[in-house]
């Protein structure tokens, strides 16, 4: 495999890539320093930036000397808009932030509100949430894989990944009614129970997925161009990543085994047997491998959760917080009153503030909710993983070539909806 990596000189140069951009730039003095700097604008409209990200890049020849991300082209004012809506109505708003991990945002918000209410959700609801969260993780990683490979030139990966992604979306459509932005998680549980036949379809999907992942690995792992473009490219050290607040596969690729699913046991993740893939070098190839391994682990979690799915209510029985089932509305007066109050005014959350975070596909997705005792949140803030992870882009790119910047940006997997909120 050594022959696929670069020659000794390139290896030495790459090994000189240190923790900070200053060290890296100094190591590359072999590039003629008397060339002028050219400022290139990777505008918000660009095929290789994932979304409306604008990068102002100072180039010396082909070497990147500085990168400044300019964001805000997708700012939607979601956090302020949530202050105007009741907690139930805010759920569709928050799920549209990071538009690939919509279930994770719903879980961060609903979980935060449930903890403010001191409300426990039934075990079946927890398992259903875990199933949908891990399916969303699979979906997000598949889309990342397809678009990243497309950026690096491997076009056929795009079609294969979207083929499987459509199967995940079929599952979502069957259980929630919508392919994306499903508003499935509610405060107190989930919106509806699984339809009959869903568990079999999902189990069939999980049975077939490992062979599909093998196919993807077979396509890319022996591809010399892919390996040359990702191995030893974009290395950032573990300490620097921790300083920058980066979490998720980017941090795990540097060797830090930090995954909120394991360290904080939210939603009963300790019931499932899965591992955290951790890299060694911290380059783009490790990030790719981490995410592929995470795909496999997520498939394992989904099949375990499907096998162990407990019976019981799928939503909290506390009618002050969760809607009563619709068939009760025809017979019970209290159910009708509860339904009316919940839909028009919403439930009131006692005043307090809380920060709750979960492990999203890109890192720590945190939600801060402050409630002032009324039925509308007083402040909702999302600690979005892509926003923080984007700060590591200059460290990955400065001192490398501009083509490596594209590869690093692809492996960084920013979702501009989450960055801009």
């Amino acid at each position, binding site marked *: 495999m050594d022959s696929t990596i670069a020659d000794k000189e390139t290896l030495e140069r790459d090994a000189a890539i240190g923790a900070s951009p200053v060290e890296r730039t100094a190591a590359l003095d072999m590039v003629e320093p008397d060339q002028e700097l050219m400022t290139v604008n990777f505008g*918000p409209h660009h095929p290789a930036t994932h979304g409306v990200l604008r990068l102002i890049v100072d180039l010396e020849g082909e070497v990147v000397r500085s990168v400044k991300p300019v964001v805000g*082209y997708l700012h939607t*004012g979601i956090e302020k808009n949530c202050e105007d809506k009741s907690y139930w109505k805010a759920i569709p708003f928050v799920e549209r932030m990071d538009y690939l991990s919509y279930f994770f945002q719903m879980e961060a918000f609903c979980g935060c509100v449930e903890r403010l209410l001191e409300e426990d959700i039934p075990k079946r609801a927890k398992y259903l949430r875990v199933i949908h969260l891990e399916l969303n993780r699979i979906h997000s990683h598949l*889309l990342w894989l397809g678009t990243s490979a497309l950026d690096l030139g491997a076009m056929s990966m795009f079609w294969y990944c*979207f083929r499987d992604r459509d199967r995940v979306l079929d599952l979502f459509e069957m259980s929630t009614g919508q392919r994306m932005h499903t508003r499935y998680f509610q405060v107190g549980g989930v919106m509806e129970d699984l339809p009959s036949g869903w568990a079999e379809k999902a189990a069939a999907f999980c049975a077939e997925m490992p062979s599909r992942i093998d196919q993807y690995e077979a396509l890319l792992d022996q591809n010399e161009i892919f390996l040359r473009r990702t191995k030893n490219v974009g290395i950032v050290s573990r300490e620097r990543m921790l300083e920058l607040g980066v979490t998720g596969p980017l941090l795990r690729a540097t060797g830090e085994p930090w995954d909120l699913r394991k360290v904080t046991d939210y939603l009963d993740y300790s019931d499932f047997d899965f591992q955290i893939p951790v890299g060694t070098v911290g380059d783009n190839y490790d990030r790719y491998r981490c995410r592929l391994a995470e795909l496999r682990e997520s498939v394992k979690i989904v099949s375990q959760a499907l096998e162990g799915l407990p019976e019981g209510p799928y939503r909290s029985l506390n009618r002050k917080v969760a809607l009563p089932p619709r068939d009760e509305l025809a017979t019970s007066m209290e159910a009708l009153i509860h339904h009316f109050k919940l839909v028009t005014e919403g439930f009131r959350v006692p005043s307090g503030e809380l920060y709750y975070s979960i492990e999203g596909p890109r890192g720590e997705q945190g939600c801060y909710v402050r409630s002032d005792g009324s039925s509308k949140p007083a402040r909702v803030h999302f600690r979005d993983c892509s926003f923080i992870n984007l700060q590591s882009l200059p460290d990955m790119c400065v001192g490398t070539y501009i083509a490596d910047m594209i590869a690093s940006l692809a492996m960084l997997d920013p979702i501009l909806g989450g960055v801009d909120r």
Partner: protein
Amino acid sequence: MRARDMLRGDMDDEELQRYVEERVLTTTLEKALNWARSNAIWPATFGLACCAIEMMSIVAARTDIARFGFEKFSASPRQADLLILSGRVSIKMAPVIRRIYDQMLEPRWVISMGACSSSGGMFSNYAVVQGADKFLPVDVHVPGCPPRPEALTYGILKLQRQIQGKPDEGWHERYDAAGTEEWARLAAVDKGDQV
């Protein structure tokens, strides 16, 4: 000059020549051009937000718009025909989109995909432009949040019909509502008919 006269052979040379120049060639040529244009549109790769993900899935194998001729997505707006505004238009992005639209060459069309670019969607706040048609002429609005790939394909087919000169008036026809659009009201105000 009427078609009947021409078909009966009642037209003389000069009239016939004018007739052919004006009607037959032009109409058939226009029709052929429009047919060709509608079946070989080059969309601009323009994804803003969540709708862009569903737009990517119409390129994918299940809902495949390559069968309608849309397979070449052009990154450069100078070579693109169609701008699919997929996603919410924030106030910072609106001048950028307008610039890209201005860089496109005629004939060009705009599909406003999803609720956010059609009307601001659920985001009625300080940061989102309430509908892309505040600064761009939009040909087809596709509702949905996000619209299914099949819905966007339906919108694309409607656009194709529109390009071919047979626009689907939809409810305008059914309810005889032509002339109730905002631009019609403005035109009437300009003419002095209406306040």
